[in-house]
């Protein structure tokens, strides 16, 4: 089944991030001068305006900061409804990194604010992109992430 959901335009300024996902890392620009992480990536650190930032793998630990169950989505998401969209707060401090994304392997009705999450990865067949999803923190880490997470390419449905 062809993946029809929107995918990112990969460009020189963001390639490090998407390469990171393919390598099993969630990389966030970290300021070389003040040490703050910045999400979403901007050309300079929002805390001190330094342009010296380094793509740095984060712990992949996060918690649900807010969530919504989407019942009416854009065309390519119709088969998934209701699917969850979460704002997940990364463990990294002090500047908050709040990341929007879908879940995998979580019954949307089990979501609650504060629920521990872990960032996992999903390779998109036929495309040059690996994307990230949020799994429950206590979900078993699969031996073969690709095989486990490509379940029908329906990241938002109950796995």
């Amino acid at each position, binding site marked *: 089944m*062809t*993946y*029809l*959901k*929107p*995918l*990112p*335009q*990969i*460009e020189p300024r*963001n390639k490090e*991030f998407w390469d990171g996902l393919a390598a099993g890392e969630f990389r966030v620009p970290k300021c070389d001068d003040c040490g703050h992480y910045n*999400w*979403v*990536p901007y050309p300079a650190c929002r805390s001190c305006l330094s342009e010296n930032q380094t793509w740095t793998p984060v712990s992949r630990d996060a918690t649900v*900061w*807010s*969530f*919504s*169950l*989407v*019942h*009416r*989505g*854009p*065309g*390519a*998401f*119709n088969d*998934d409804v*209701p*699917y969850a*969209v979460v*704002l997940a*707060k990364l463990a990294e401090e002090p*500047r*908050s990194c*709040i990341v*929007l*994304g*879908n879940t995998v392997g979580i019954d949307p009705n089990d979501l609650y*604010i504060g629920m521990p999450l872990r960032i996992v990865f999903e390779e*998109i067949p036929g*495309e040059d992109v690996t*994307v990230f999803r949020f799994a429950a923190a206590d979900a078993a880490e699969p031996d073969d992430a690709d095989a486990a997470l490509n379940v029908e390419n329906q990241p*938002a449905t109950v796995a």
Partner: protein
Amino acid sequence: MRYKFGSKCLISPAPLAGIERWKPVARPRQAAIAGVYTTKQGKLPDRTSFSLQLEAIKGALDDAGIPIEEVDGIIPMSMSDHLPGTTAHQFWANQLGERPLGLMEVGGASGALAKAALAIENGMCEVVVLFYGKAGSLVGPRGTAMPDRAPRVPDWSFYQSGAYMTTWYALWAQRYMHEFGVTHADLAEVAVFTRHHATLNPDSIMGRKGDITVEDVLNSRPICEPLNLLDCSLDNDGGYAIVMTSVERARSGKKEPVLVLGGAESTYTDFYVTINDPWFPEEGKAVRRATERAFGIAGIQHDDIDVAGLYDCFTITTIRDLEEMGFCKLGEGADYVKEGHCSLGGKMPTNTDGGLLSNSHAGDPAGMHTIEVVRQLRGECGERQVPGAKLGVSLQQGWAVHGMAGVLVMATE
């Protein structure tokens, strides 16, 4: 010269506390809204965005009694879809007769109008028209066709996750309800009072469907939980325009001028991409700043306001508007609504046309709240008229939920 340029600036934005009662500040000259117009709102399959915009421009100028030749400032609220590579400003400058314009402003309606007022007050231009029109496309996902391969979108865009604007407001509502112990039934009160107002507005889209209850909102189908269908604004076609000029010029027009006492705008975030913790800080964000500046410039206090138009794209939005603007405390917006203050007959009737929830939302409805306040101050609102309304305020907001804001304070002469 007909007026003196301000050699002495008496406008000093001050904190709200301790401001004297409503007393317009001295200024080089006074700006006023002279004309407003709304096209038919609803499904308009036979119209184009262009023709709605042109109808709105002509209609508002006719309402003002000012000929097109006097227009020397424009605030187009739509993108240009007419000539590739041409901005809306360039296109409309040419379309309106190739006359030199003195002001070409962008931004949300209340904030753009605040800047237009400053331009008029200081002699940069004479007659500004703000206009919008949209037909044939939808804002919500109903308008999204099924692609035949995965489309590519900007890197951090929410479209990758099947999110859209409603989803952002739902995330906002969920976090808000969590932090302040507010329920969905509390939010629903906003839909109930605005629908009632719509039933008194013969031009509103939903008024003919009659009143609704909190139960109706809770039982309407879920769109993005916790928001249900009746928590969401409409998604229709339509156009509108607003004409602003000096009060002297407005006085020789057709309608009673509505004075612009002051306004301000503020923005702090990008377009539905990032958000920071905390989402609801005590000190407020863009709406708070725009409100404090606007009220300070106008020299008003909250209790002076007779009628309000507060952005209501979703039920949660109005609740947060009231809190950020300082009409009540953080977490108490729903209580303010339940006490009846926003309803006709209450101390600050709000969204008396039915708002974006029950009157119309035609894509960028940023000027609609201002238009309804103008009509209230003119006494043109029939069954839904706020008796003796003399002072009104409009709030427009957008982007990543309260990410940008414009506030405009208006009064009768």
